[in-house]
């Protein structure tokens, strides 16, 4: 189990989180949802110490998350990456193998083979030699997923992987993530589109500067919790039809 304990995070004196506590199950796919500015990405980044915590700790099976650093693959939001960098699709995926290498070791035959396999899993082999700034949003997202795969991590932390991508990319990424969970990996995804929450996640955190609700998706994803996080009116729109199929935001 991943445990976040007494987490405080602040930006220039503004509190984003105050004494946040939550547990996330292992070997499942967990989603983090919440309105804009709720701190979804910040929670993910604070767990990885990319954003500084002012207080608190994150444990995996009782041990500090730092011990698992190289076993956690992080997929950033596309806007966080410098796309003008002179690097090809293949090279980007290859950098995913760096954490598996010792300090002086350069990627060898094994790492190159692994990177090619990861490219294939996401149907990117034809784009291997393409510059990353010449890709569509969906293709680029697949490159980042392939890079994360190349790290052979046990944990995947993804920041909005499905935002603004084409259907083919979405399906490919979904399939790859599904397979990872079947193989016992743990996935934590920041997600903004309430539409497919039930298809994608076994477990759900609903966040708005605090944990509004956390639990199995079946039990957690309901009008009451969504209204608590997004406000009264939004919840009405979302669940106004029978059943609870969400409406895209």
């Amino acid at each position, binding site marked *: 189990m991943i445990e976040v304990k007494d987490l405080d995070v602040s930006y220039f004196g503004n509190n984003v989180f105050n004494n946040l506590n939550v547990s996330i199950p292992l070997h499942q796919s967990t989603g983090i949802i919440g309105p804009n500015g709720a701190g979804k990405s910040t929670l993910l980044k604070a767990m990885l110490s*990319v954003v500084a915590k002012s207080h608190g700790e994150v444990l995996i099976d009782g041990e500090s998350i730092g011990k698992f*650093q190289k076993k956690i693959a992080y997929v950033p939001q596309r806007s966080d*990456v410098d796309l003008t960098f*002179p690097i090809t699709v293949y090279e*980007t995926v290859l*950098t995913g193998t760096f*954490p598996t290498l010792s300090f002086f070791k*350069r990627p060898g035959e094994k790492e190159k083979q692994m990177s090619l396999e990861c490219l294939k899993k996401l149907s990117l082999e034809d784009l291997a030699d393409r510059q990353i700034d010449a890709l569509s949003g969906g293709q680029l997202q697949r490159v980042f997923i392939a890079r994360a795969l190349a790290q052979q991590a046990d944990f995947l932390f993804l920041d909005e992987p499905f935002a603004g991508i084409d259907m083919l990319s979405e399906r490919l990424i979904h399939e790859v993530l599904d397979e990872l969970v079947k193989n016992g990996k743990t996935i934590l995804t920041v997600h903004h589109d309430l539409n497919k929450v039930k298809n994608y996640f076994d477990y759900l955190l609903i966040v708005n500067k605090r944990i509004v609700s956390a639990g199995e998706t079946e039990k957690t994803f309901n009008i009451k919790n969504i209204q608590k996080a997004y406000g009264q009116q939004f919840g009405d729109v979302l669940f106004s039809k029978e059943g609870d199929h969400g409406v895209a935001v």
Partner: protein
Amino acid sequence: MEWLFSVADYFNMPVSMLTALLASVILGITSGILGSFIVLRRLSLMGDALSHAVLPGVAVSYMLGINMLFGATFFGLLAAGLIEFITKKSKIKTDASIGIILSSFFALGIILITKAESGTDLNHILFGNILAVTPNEILQSFIILIIVLVIITVFYKGFFVTSFDPVVAKTYGMNTNFYHYLLMFLLTIFTVSALSQVGIVLVVALLVTPATTAYLWSKHLNHMIIGASLLGVISGVGGVLLSFNYNIPTSAAIVLIGAIIFGVSFVFSPKNGFFKQRKKVIG
């Protein structure tokens, strides 16, 4: 350094021309390697700031009679640290804090140089004189080139990932601050090596112009670094030859040749593609 004379004799050129050519080759390679990382990490302004900020260090070194490298490194890193501190601890933007630190360190340097009364000519430090470069300075530049090569090679993976995707680099457990300051350190020792040859004022041109030009032609980081070094050498050698033949200031000639190559690349290179259909996919 007898061999310098024999070589110069053999090619029937003045020794000062040979030393200038040697110096410009060494400088060109070093500037290409460092410049590539400076440009990709958006530190061009920082490069300008550091090259100016070493001035007090140069003066203090004269006063204490120590090698310029020590004083320059101290003040260079101090400036880098202060810029970082001001930016991180306030809402002041990086360019503003760079502006403040650059000019104050430079001003302090001017005062100290004047007070040092060491017979050092401020003009010489500001604008350099590659024709008057001594064999010892060439040796020092060469050692600095070797240091830069070794450090960049050993830490290549780290420099690569922290430049490309610093957030993911952090999650890999790479210390992005370490790489930043390591690069700043290399930048200050490079400035010392460039100082006597092209002068403080034009150091930034050596760093930024060849690297940016190479960037326009490259798809891979290593190609960019090699290309930038090559362009650095071409502008260096070209500048020296031009200044010998037409009696124009060498450092200015080097910088302008670099700028002309950039201008041509800007129009014709595939990345800018004024003459080539963009292959960009939108969506």
